[in-house]
């Protein structure tokens, strides 16, 4: 019943929102890694459809763009390396080294180096993406996962899923300066763009810890409650802040919802129904659209940020995992030739 209703609601919304949008946002290329299919789906943010599918190495997960937007870099976890694809031609540019089972990469604010968590090795690897060489390895806790970079480029935050900590590491000298205990199975660390806070989601703990990076202390813990959903199913993973840091969007895993949180009062304002097992989130560069990867339902939900409503579900490959949007609008429509 509810499903039917919500589908209908989404259908209605998608019509109204598209009408209301007026001159549509310039189409960006949105890249979605499909963990079980070994592909990246390329979605045009204007057409809201898959325009290309890139065949990748095994088990593509964490996915980011180079600073100039010319490369899309994806962790191919089962191949124990990363791959670089050209965002225009979709051709493989090169492989990058990592440790075993790389999961989430993040770039230094300057664009190089790249830091990647290796889930199977208790290490974060620092990689020069231009030279394609490993600079060093930084030891962290068991099952490193989430990667956050402070906007000034000075602090790297890594979370370890079984040690249940956020490790604060300086990018200058790779010194571990603090280890903060958070709730069970921390997945994602995300800084506000003003650097004032870093939020760490705990998937099994069901919370998001707000950490003051200056004092290195947990200042607040956000919890979630959804009527009709058991607490166990509320499993926060992806966290993204809107343009002015006034609101945060938190993906809640098998609760199939994205929470909208007031990022000043930490009050949860609403829950947006999306696809199944929603893990990661990505804005278009204009912050008008938010894409969510829904692993179990093989789709992404597109959320209109202004209205905080889902406007469309787009079928991707199997088990979509990560998502990142291109930084420049697409020039011409792609031909849509798959693979």
């Amino acid at each position, binding site marked *: 019943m509810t499903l039917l209703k919500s589908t209908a609601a989404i259908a209605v919304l998608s019509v109204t929102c598209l009408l209301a949008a007026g001159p549509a946002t310039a189409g960006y290329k949105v890249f979605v890694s499909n963990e079980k299919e070994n592909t990246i789906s390329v979605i045009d943010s204007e057409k809201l459809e898959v325009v290309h599918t890139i065949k990748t190495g095994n088990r593509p997960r964490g996915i980011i763009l180079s600073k100039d937007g010319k490369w899309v870099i994806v962790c191919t976890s089962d191949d124990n390396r990363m791959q670089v694809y050209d965002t225009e031609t979709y051709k493989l540019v090169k492989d990058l080294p990592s440790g075993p*089972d790389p999961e989430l990469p993040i770039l230094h604010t300057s664009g190089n180096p790249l830091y990647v968590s290796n*889930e*199977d*090795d*208790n*290490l974060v690897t620092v990689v020069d993406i231009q030279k394609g060489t490993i600079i*060093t*390895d*930084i*030891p*962290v*806790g*068991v*099952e490193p996962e989430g990667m956050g970079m402070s906007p000034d480029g000075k602090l790297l935050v890594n979370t370890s*899923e*079984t*040690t*249940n*900590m956020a*490790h604060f590491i300086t990018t200058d000298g*790779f*010194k*571990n*300066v*603090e*280890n*903060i*205990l958070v709730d*069970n*199975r921390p997945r994602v660390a995300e800084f506000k763009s003003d650097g004032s806070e870093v939020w760490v989601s705990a998937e*099994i*703990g*069901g919370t998001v810890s707000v950490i003051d990076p200056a004092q*290195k*202390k947990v200042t607040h813990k956000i919890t979630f409650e959804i009527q009709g959903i*058991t607490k*166990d*199913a509320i*499993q926060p993973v992806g966290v993204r802040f809107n343009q002015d840091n006034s609101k945060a969007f938190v993906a809640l895993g*098998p609760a199939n919802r994205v929470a909208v949180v007031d990022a000043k009062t930490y009050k949860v304002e609403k829950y947006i129904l999306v696809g199944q097992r929603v893990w990661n989130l990505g804005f278009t560069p204009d912050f008008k659209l938010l894409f969510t990867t829904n692993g179990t339902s093989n789709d992404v939900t597109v959320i209109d940020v202004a209205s905080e409503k889902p406007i469309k579900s787009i079928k991707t490959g199997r088990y979509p995992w990560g998502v990142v949007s291109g930084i420049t609008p697409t020039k011409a429509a792609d031909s849509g030739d798959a693979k």
Partner: protein
Amino acid sequence: MAISLRYKVTKWKRLVSQASPLPVLVDSVKFVSVCSVRERKFRSAAAAALIAGASVLVAGGSVQAGAPPGLAPPAETAPAAGEVSDVQTLPILMVRQLRPARLPPLSLLDLPPKDEGLAGARLAVEDNNTTGRFLKQNFALELIESEDPAELIAETKKRVEGGIGFIVTDLDAKPTIELADALKGLDAVIFNASAPDENIREEDCRANLKHTAPSRTMLADALAQYLAWKRWGNWVLIIGPSPEDKGLAEAYRRAAQRFGMKVVEEREFKYDPGSRRSDGGFEQIQQQIPTFTQKLPPHDVLIVVDEGELFGDYFPYRTWDAKPVAGTAGLYPTSWHPAIELWGGTQFQNRFKRLAGRNMTPLDYNAWMAVRSIGEAATRKQSVERKTLIDYMLSPDFELAAFKGRKLTYRSWNGQLRQPVVLATGKMHVTVSPQPGFLHQFTELDTLGIDKPETKCRAYQK
């Protein structure tokens, strides 16, 4: 590493046997040093550097932890001199009942590893210590093993009086209860990692006894929910002759009633297991099983009840009717399976394989959960004090992440760890129960096993 460990145990055995009239008792094996030396030196060295260089956050306030070193001093020197004194150590005792009389399994693939259970506990100690390093806590595993439960109980009591508060057991049900009684009034808690018996969770429950091993009713309910989801509602029970089989059969009868299934016939399989390893055998079994399963009423599935795994695996593909087999053979419920990659399980399995050089069994997993429960409590309470940790583990705040896709907690009425149950074949998992649609007012996990309103356990009532 596994080899060096075994060597240590054997050596101790020999030493003890020379010196003492009780040759079976193995003395304590301290894993502290063994566990801290990681397989890849590079890794441990680096990790140690991290600890030394880190300032450690303790309960809201930062405690600076000494001089910042470079990236990687060698592991041996890293736990810097000035810090050692304020590291708190939490010893954990593993108690193993050796069962040489137990029959070997039907399949050569299922021979139990010598360190079954123990290796799981060791992995958890390593996992605990990774976190512990950041919090100045150190976990140490001690081991006693014997064929004689009385000896194990006496030795455990001695260790508890000597300061150990946490015990993980691989014992049969009866000695488990006897141990709990022997430790009554002492500050100690026992984690039962092996015995599935219902009575030790129900009428014979003890307040100082927790269970990470799932109970028979939890296992039976997990399978029943899936069979209900499949609409395979008519069951035939094939029941072995042992008392354990009778207990498990009762759990299946209860599950059938609970989930609207029907046991259409029960047959007892009386069988002399005889020798396992022989050149022949299948010729006769191929004749025997079809004959035994002849003239059954219409049914959807055969449920084999054979906890000792003495004959169950003879049934799949040999039954008179073309029906699937489940229970202790075919599709079976279990707390863990070595092929699980769900919920981050891949890395967990890899860690275990690196440590033990083999696959993780359910007993390993149950022992891992027990030791991790202790570690989790120590981490969250920033304490190694027994009473504090025991109280916390029973409080609603306690939760364990155990690669099951949701937090695990202990039932407040009998100390049983709530957990999803995997349904698997030899190769891989088929599904995980609770199944969708089986609802509960508090947690779906309580649709598996005996629930609060039904419990006969009184020891936990205060």
